[in-house]
């Protein structure tokens, strides 16, 4: 796209969908005439339409690659390098793996959920008792400690 066109293209007021439909001849005759009129009055719209035509038109001139004269030899060399039992092994292992994988996945999810419930239940039950005992013991120990210090000071 040239520098002259870049700035102008943005200013085209026709919507993308309408321009596409116009280009693909999907508009009614009246609509088509209306778009044509808009395009003829706007240099920017004409540039945008031309840019779309030129870019999309490259589909028809898509480049082609040149053949490789050594391809046959390369393929044969590669094939002779690979062990013959590879495809057989692959076809045998894929179905087993395909069956085992979902079973393992389901089992691991189930184990994770059950262990979560088990540990969670135990943890909450234990934590309440533990909290109560630690609070009591702390209070009791602190009181004793304080008492002994007071006794010591009084003496």
């Amino acid at each position: 796209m040239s520098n002259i066109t870049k700035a102008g293209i943005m200013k085209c007021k026709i919507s993308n969908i309408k321009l596409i439909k116009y280009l693909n001849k999907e508009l009614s005759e009246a609509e088509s005439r209306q778009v044509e009129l808009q395009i003829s009055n706007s240099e920017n719209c004409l540039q945008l339409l031309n840019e779309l035509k030129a870019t999309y038109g490259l589909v028809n001139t898509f480049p082609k690659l040149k053949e490789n004269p050594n391809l046959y030899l390369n393929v044969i060399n590669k094939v002779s390098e690979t062990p013959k039992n590879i495809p057989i092994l692959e076809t045998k292992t894929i179905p087993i793996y395909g069956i085992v994988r979902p079973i393992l996945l389901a089992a691991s999810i189930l184990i994770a959920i059950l262990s979560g419930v088990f540990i969670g239940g135990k943890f909450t039950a234990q934590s309440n008792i533990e909290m109560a005992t630690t609070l009591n013991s702390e209070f009791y120990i602190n009181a004793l400690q304080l008492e002994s210090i007071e006794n010591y000071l009084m003496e």
Partner: protein
Amino acid sequence: MTDKQLVSEIIKGNQLYFKILVDQYQSLVLNTCFSFVHNKVDAEDICQEVFIEVYLSIHKFKDQSKLSTWLYRIAVNKSLNYIRDNKKRNIFKSIENFFIKSQSDLQIPDDSYLDASFDEIEKERFELLKKAINKLPENQRIAFTLHKIKKMPYKKTAEIMNISLASVEGLIHRAKINVQKYILKKCREK
């Protein structure tokens, strides 16, 4: 020589016939791969992989379809697998680049295959077209590439994709609009 004779001779182990197959269908396979991956070196690598697979699994070829249809299917599948793997690789690369600013940012697009008559503006347009095609959903991309770029009729496209004729028509229509929308959007952004 018919496809059936060619295949049966290759199965018998006659390598001369495999060479005939490679010579006969190389252009078809290579350019199909290229129309999907848009990179010369990658297309050549995939093309080689396609013929290796053909050699190793020629006994699986069924006479119900044409040899070219079978080859197209393998080429399309291999190309799409490559694109998927490449996407994953690019995600890792972009994460890597985020932490380490490397020279991979300075990648030069491979346009050596382009016609010498292509000037800078046309090269820019071609890059935009490739990006627009790459943005398409997989099914639309296959249908669009086979029909619009490879100039394959609807019937053969449907046969390769193993879907109905109506589905192919729908996919191509949607793909065409999406490509055009993307081009217009990028043109307006410039």
